[in-house]
C-alpha cells in the first residue's frame, strides 16, 4: 500500500475526537464562592460569577454584594476553587496538524512566498484529538495560524468546543502573518539542524520583494477591482487598518526594520510576534504602541552569553516597560504543547511577573491583541461566559485541575481520550487483580 495513503487512513481512524461538543446554555448558572482571577489584573476572593445565555450577567464579591440566588437555575458551589477566563493560545498551528512526522496530517503551510489569501480557518480540524487535550488544562480559545513563506496566510480565532470550523469561529480572518526576513541564514548544518549562521545575503532582496508586494497591494486596494487578484484582495483589510499585520521577528535589527517597514506601508495594526530580543528595543514598541506575542517562555536563550533565564524573564522585562504582550508557544510540537500555555505563564510569574498579570498574559492581553476583547479575555459582565474553574492554581502544573469549563456558557466535556485510555488500562489491571 502507498505509504502516505496508509498513514492517511490510520490518521483518519486515529484522529477523530470522541468528545461531543456541548449544547447551548439553556439554564442560567451561578458559580459561588471561588477566587476569581478576572483577567484584567484584578483578583476577587470569595466571588460570585453568574451567566445566562452564554453571557456573563453577574460578577461580584460575595462579601460586598448580596446575590439573589433565585435569579439562577443552577448554583455551583466552588468554595476555595479558582475561576479564570478561558485561556487563549495565540499563534498556534492547533487544528492544522495532527501528527508532526506524518506529512498527510500537516495543513499549516502552503507552497510559495506570498500567501495572504490562504486561510487557516477552513483547514481547522475541530475534531482534532489534540484539541480535546488542550481544553482539559483551561485553554479554551486559540488563534489557528498558518506558517512559513514570507507571508504565511491569514489566521482566525476559534473556540475549542465545536462541531466544525464554522461552528468554531470566534473571529474569522483576524490578520495576516508576515515572517520578517531573517537577518541570518544557516551556513553550517549539524546533525540536528543549523549550527552556524551568517548574515543573510538575500535580506535586502527579500525586503524589496515584500515592499513591492505591499505597494502593489496598496494600489490594488485603492479601488474595487473588476479583475480580482486573490493575494492582493486578502491584504485589503490589513491595508485599510481593520485587521492585524503580525510580524514575526526576533533580533533587534529585524524588529526595528520590520516595524518601520510596516509603518512605511501605512499599516495601522501591527503586532510583533516572537520578539526574543524585544526587551532591547522597547522604545520603538512603546512609542508606536506595538504589542508583542512573546515566543515560548520555556525555551533556551538564543546565545550562550545570554542571561540563562532570559526566556523566563522576557514577560517581566516587557511588563516593566508597560508594553502590551501575551504569551504564545510557537516551536517544536506546538499544537500538543498548547496545553502547557498556563505553565508558561506560571514560569513567567516565577521570574518576576505579578501573578494577575501572568493570568492577563494568556487571557485579556491576548484578546486585546487579537481584537476579541469586547467579548473575550476576562470574566466581566457582558462578556462571553468562556471561563473555567480549577481546583487549584491553574498556572501551576501540580494544582491545575479543572472542575468545570464553559465556552459561551456551554458546560463543556473535559474528559479527553487520554483520560479514557488511562481508565481503560486501570480497569485492565483491576481485572487482573480480581
Amino acid at each position, binding site marked *: 500500500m502507498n505509504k502516505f495513503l496508509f*498513514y492517511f487512513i490510520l*490518521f483518519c481512524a*486515529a*484522529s477523530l475526537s470522541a468528545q461531543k461538543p456541548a449544547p447551548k446554555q439553556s439554564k442560567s448558572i451561578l458559580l459561588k464562592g471561588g477566587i476569581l482571577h478576572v483577567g484584567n489584573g484584578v483578583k476577587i476572593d470569595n466571588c460570585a460569577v453568574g451567566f445566562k445565555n452564554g453571557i456573563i450577567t453577574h460578577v461580584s464579591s460575595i462579601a460586598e454584594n448580596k446575590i439573589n440566588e433565585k435569579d439562577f437555575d443552577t448554583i455551583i458551589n466552588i468554595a476555595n476553587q479558582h475561576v479564570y477566563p478561558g485561556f487563549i493560545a495565540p499563534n498556534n498551528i492547533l487544528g492544522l496538524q495532527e*501528527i*508532526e*512526522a*506524518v506529512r498527510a496530517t500537516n495543513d499549516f503551510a502552503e507552497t510559495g512566498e506570498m500567501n495572504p489569501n490562504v486561510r487557516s480557518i477552513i483547514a481547522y480540524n475541530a475534531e482534532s*484529538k489534540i484539541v480535546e487535550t488542550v481544553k482539559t488544562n483551561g485553554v479554551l480559545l486559540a488563534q489557528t495560524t498558518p506558517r512559513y513563506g514570507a507571508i504565511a496566510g491569514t489566521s482566525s480565532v476559534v473556540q475549542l468546543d465545536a462541531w466544525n470550523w464554522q461552528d468554531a469561529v470566534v473571529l474569522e480572518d483576524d490578520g495576516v502573518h508576515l515572517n520578517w526576513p531573517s537577518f*541570518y541564514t544557516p*551556513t*553550517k*548544518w*549539524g*546533525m*540536528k*539542524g*543549523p*549550527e*552556524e*549562521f*551568517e*548574515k543573510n545575503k538575500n535580506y535586502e532582496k527579500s525586503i524589496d520583494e515584500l515592499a513591492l508586494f505591499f505597494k502593489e497591494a496598496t494600489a490594488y486596494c485603492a479601488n474595487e477591482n473588476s479583475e480580482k487578484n486573490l493575494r492582493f484582495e486578502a491584504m485589503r483589510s490589513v491595508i485599510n487598518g481593520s485587521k492585524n499585520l503580525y510580524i514575526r521577528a526576533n*533580533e*533587534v*535589527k529585524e524588529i526595528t526594520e520590520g516595524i518601520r517597514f510596516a509603518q512605511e506601508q501605512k499599516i495601522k495594526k501591527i503586532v510583533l510576534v516572537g520578539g526574543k530580543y524585544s526587551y532591547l528595543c522597547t522604545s520603538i514598541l512603546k512609542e508606536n504602541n506595538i504589542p508583542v506575542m512573546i515566543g515560548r517562555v*520555556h*525555551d*533556551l*536563550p*538564543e*546565545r*550562550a*552569553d545570554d*542571561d*540563562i*533565564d532570559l526566556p523566563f524573564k522576557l514577560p517581566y522585562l516587557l511588563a516593566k516597560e508597560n508594553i502590551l504582550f501575551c504569551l504564545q508557544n510557537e516551536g*517544536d510540537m506546538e*499544537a*500538543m504543547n498548547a*496545553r502547557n500555555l498556563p*505553565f508558561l505563564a*506560571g*514560569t513567567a*510569574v*516565577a*521570574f518576576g511577573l505579578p501573578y494577575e498579570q501572568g493570568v492577563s498574559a494568556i487571557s485579556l492581553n491576548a484578546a486585546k491583541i487579537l481584537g476579541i476583547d469586547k467579548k473575550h479575555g476576562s470574566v466581566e459582565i457582558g462578556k462571553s461566559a468562556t471561563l473555567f474553574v480549577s481546583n487549584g492554581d491553574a498556572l*501551576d*502544573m*501540580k*494544582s*491545575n485541575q479543572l472542575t468545570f469549563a464553559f465556552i459561551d456558557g456551554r458546560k463543556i466535556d473535559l474528559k479527553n481520550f*487520554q*483520560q479514557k*485510555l*488511562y481508565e481503560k*488500562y486501570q480497569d*485492565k*489491571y483491576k481485572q*487482573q487483580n480480581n
Partner: protein
Amino acid sequence: MNRFLFISAFCCFTLLFTSVKSQETFPFNGPKNEKHILYAFVNATIFVDYQTKIDGATLLVQNGKVVSVSKNAAPKNALIIESKGKIIYPSFIDAFTNYGMPEVKKGKREDRNQFISTKKGAYNWNQAIKPEINSAELFIADNASAETFRKVGFGAVHTQASDGICRGTGAVVLLSNEKENTLFVSSKSSANYSFDKGSSTQDYPSSLMGSIALLKQTYLDAEWYAKNDKTKETNISLEAFNETQNLPQVFEVKDKYNVLRAAKIAKEFGKSFVFKTAGDEYMAIKEIAETKSSLIVPLNFPEAFDVSDPLDAHNISLEDLKHWENAPFNPYYLHLNKIPFSITSADLKEKKTFLTKLKKAIDCGLPVSEALKALTYFPAKQLGVDNVVGSLKPGMLANFIICNNELGSAKFNVQENWIKGEQFVIEKPEAIDIRGKYDFVIDNNKLVLTIDGESSKPKATFSKDTIKYKSTISIERRLINFTYVVDSKTIRLSGEVLPGDSLLKGTAINESGAQNYWNAKLIESKKTEAKPDSNSTKKEELGTVWFPNMAYGFDTLPTKNNYLIKNTSVWTNEKEGVLSNYDVLIQNGKITKIDKNISALGAEIIDGKEKHLTAGIIDEHSHIAISGGVNEWAQASSAEVSISDVVNPEDINIYRQLAGGVTAAQLLHGSANPVGGQSAIIKLRWGQTPEKMKIEGADGFIKFALGENVKQSGSWGGARFPQSRMGVEQSFYDVFIRAKEYESKKNNALKNKTTFRKDLELETISEILNKKRFITCHSYVQSEINMLMHVADSMKFRVNTFTHILEGYKVADKMKNHGVGASTFSDWWAYKFEVMDAIPYNAALLTQQGVVTAINSDDAEMARRLNQEAAKTVKYGGLTEEEALKTVTLNPAKLLHLDTKIGSIKVGKDADIVLWTNNPLSVYAKAEKTFVDGVCLYDRTKEETIKQKNNIERQRIIQKMIAAKSGGEKTQKPNSKKQQHHYHCDSIEEYYYE
C-alpha cells in the same frame, strides 16, 4: 650567484639538466656540468642549532651540505660571500603540510546508503582506513606553493595526504624547485591519522565516536591480521598499517579535547602520537601535558572582530572574545607547561602572515630560543630527520636562511633562503637611497635639486631661488634620469649615481638637441635614520583562562567546602519523607548528618528557612554535552561506539541545567538504529574536563531503539536494514546470536591459545549477556515493547530500562514481570504516529503498577525544568508529591544503578543536592543553590555578580579589540552567530548529517 634563479626563470626544462643536483641514475645531455664549489659565508652570526650561536663565524658549504661552521678563516679555494651583519639560521621545517599533495575532493555518492568502501582491490572495508597511501608516490613538487613557504623561512616540510582516519605515510621534502627525485629528505617519515573520514563517501562512521571506534577496531584487526592465515583474508591496508607502526605516528586534531581522546587510544594500544593541534591547547593544558605527547602547533590566531556596531557585536560570544585574546599565548602556555612542540604554518589563511604571527607569539612570552627550536631542531626530531636537517652541523643539508635581524626583532625577515646549497633570494638588497638636497650644476648654471618622497619611489624638484621647475625622476639600479621644464622647454638628463652615493653625474639634452654635462653634489642627506627596534620590547598582556573558557566559566575552579544547611524542609526520598525544619551537614563531598540543630565548626552556614532541600535531579535521558554527533546510524548495530568517548564539557546547557537543579545525567546515543552506542553517565561538573565529568565506577549502559526511527520511517529512509518492526526483531536476534558464537570462539581461542579477532561490537553485546552492561531502550508502542522483552527472555538477558515507553501503561504488568524500569516523558505526544496513544498518565499508572519510573528530558530545554515535569505526575494520575519528586531523583538513580550513591538525602551519600526557593514541584520553584559532590556549582544569589563578571570581561576585551583595530590590525565582521539547540533523540532532523 643568481645563476640558478636566472636559469629557472627562463625554462624549467633546462633546469633538469643543468641543476647542480643532477641525479645519478639519470642520463645527461651534453658534457656533464657537476660543480663542487666551496661556498664560504664569512663574518656572519651563525646559529649552528637553536642553542648554539657563534659570532663572526664562517659557514662552509659544498655539494649541498654543511662542511663546517667555525671561527676559522675561509680556505683559499672558497667562493667568499661577505656576510657581515647577517644572521644565519638553519632553515625552518614545517612538520605538518599538504605540500605537493593532490587536492582532497569528496567523492559523489552513488547510492543512498554505502556500506563498504568503493576502492577496488584487496583493501580495507572502510574507505577512511587507507594506511596504504604513500604520500611519496603522490608528491608532485609545486614551485608556486614552495615559494610561499620559502619566503617565510621554511626549507623542508613534512607532507602528507590529509585525508581519512588512517591516512598513510608522509614524507619530508625540500622546498627547492627541482625534480622530485632530489627533494626527499625521507620518503617514509610518518604514519598519519585523524578522526575525520575525509573524502570517504561511506556512511560509516557518521560521528566522532564512530571514528574513535573504527580506529580502535583497526588496531585490533591489524593485530589479528599479523597473526592470521593470509589465505583467509588478504588486506593490503592492514598490511601497510602494520608496516608503518614503527614510524612517527602523526595525529591531526581539530580540538583540544581530541588530543585527550586520541591519547587515550594511544595508551590503550601502546602507541604514542605526535599531535597536530588546533591552537587551543591552553584551555586544557594540564591534561594535555599529562599525556606526555609532543605537538605540532599552528599560529592560527583569530583576527579581531569589528565590534563597532554593538548589535552586531552581540553575535560574538565571550568564548570567541577570550579565544582571540588568549590564542597568541598558546605557544607560551605550552612552553610554560614543558610540552614539547614544533610550530607549523598550517591553518593560516595566508602563509605570508606567518612571521607576523610568530612575532606575536614571541611578544606573548614564547622565548626566542624556544621559537627557533620549534621551527628547526624539534620538527626534525619529531620526524626522525634531525641528523639531516634542523641544524648546521657538518654533513647536514645546507638548509639555512640569511637575515638582517635576529628572530624576535620586529624587523626580522628572510633575505635569502638556501636549500641544499641552492640560493633563493627572498628580499633583494634595498635600492639605493639618494634622497637629499643637491647642488646641481649644468653649463655653469646653478640650480638646487631636491629629491624626496620614498626611497624606492623618489620625487625630484629642480629650483632656483623661489622658482620651482616642473620635474621628473626615474631610477633603475644606479642609472638615473631627470627632466625639468624651464619656460615651457623640457631639459632631459641621464646619468648615474657614483659610488659613495653622494655624487650624480651625466649628460643633458636641451630643447634644441644640444648636449651638456651636469653633476649634482649632495649637500644634505634626507635618508631616514633607522628607527630603534621599539616593537621588540612590547609585551602583550596575558588574558585569563576560565573553566570553561566562556561566559559563565569559573576563573578558578570552586572546591569542596563543608556546608551546613539550616532549618529547611528536607525531601529525603527515604522512609523519613519530608522533614520540616531540619539541618543537613555536608562535608568532604558527602552528606554526613541530617538532624535538628546541628552545629558544625568551620562549615559554611546556609539559611534554609522557608526553602526546600532535595537530592539533585538526575536526567536519565539526555543528549547535552556531546561532541561530534549523537547517532552512529550507518549500521543496524553500533554497539562498539561510546558517548563516553565524546563528552563535551563546554556545553552551556550544563550550566543552565545546574540552574535547574540537575546534577547528573545519562548522555545517550540517539535512536537511529536498533543497537545504538554505549552511554556516558556524568555529573554536571561544570568547568571540568571530559574525563572528570564521568561518574567513577558507574555501570556501563547501552542504548537500544525500536520503532519508527530505527526503521527509518521518514523521507530519510534508505536501504539500511531494518525497514520494518519485523526487521527490528531480527536485528536483535542477529547480534545476540553472533555474540554468543563469538564468546564460544573466544573462549576456545583462549583455551587453545590460538588467535581470534577481537570484535568491539560483539564484546559489548557479550557484556550485556554477562550482566556487565545494561540496556536503555527507546520504545513507544506495546507490540515492540513486548517483542524486546520476548527476545530478551529467549536470549537470556534483561532489559534494564525502557526509555520514552509511552505505551508502557498498556504493558505495565509484563514490564513488572520482566523487571524493567521506565523512563518517560511527562506529557509529550502527537509528534509521530507511534505516539498517538501516549498519555500523560503513563508515569502514574506505571508507578501504581510497581514499575520503577523516571521522568526524563531528552531535551536540553526541558531538562532545566524537570521538577515541573515531575509535578505533572501529580496532575495526571495523582502521584503524591514525594512520589513525583522521586521520578526525577531516586528513580532515575535506581535505573542507573547509582541509588547507593545519589538520588536521596541520606547520610553517606554524595552531596549532590539542591536548595529550592519553594516547593520543588511548584512552577514557582527556582533552584537557589546546586551542589555536586559538595561543590557549589550554581548559586542564584550570585547570579547578578556572575553576569556582571561576564560583562566586565566582555567590555574589557571589546575595548582591546577596538584598540587593535585602530592600531591597524585586520578585523573580521561579526556576521555569524552560533546557535544552541535543543535536541531530542526523536528529532527528525537528527538524521541529517554533514
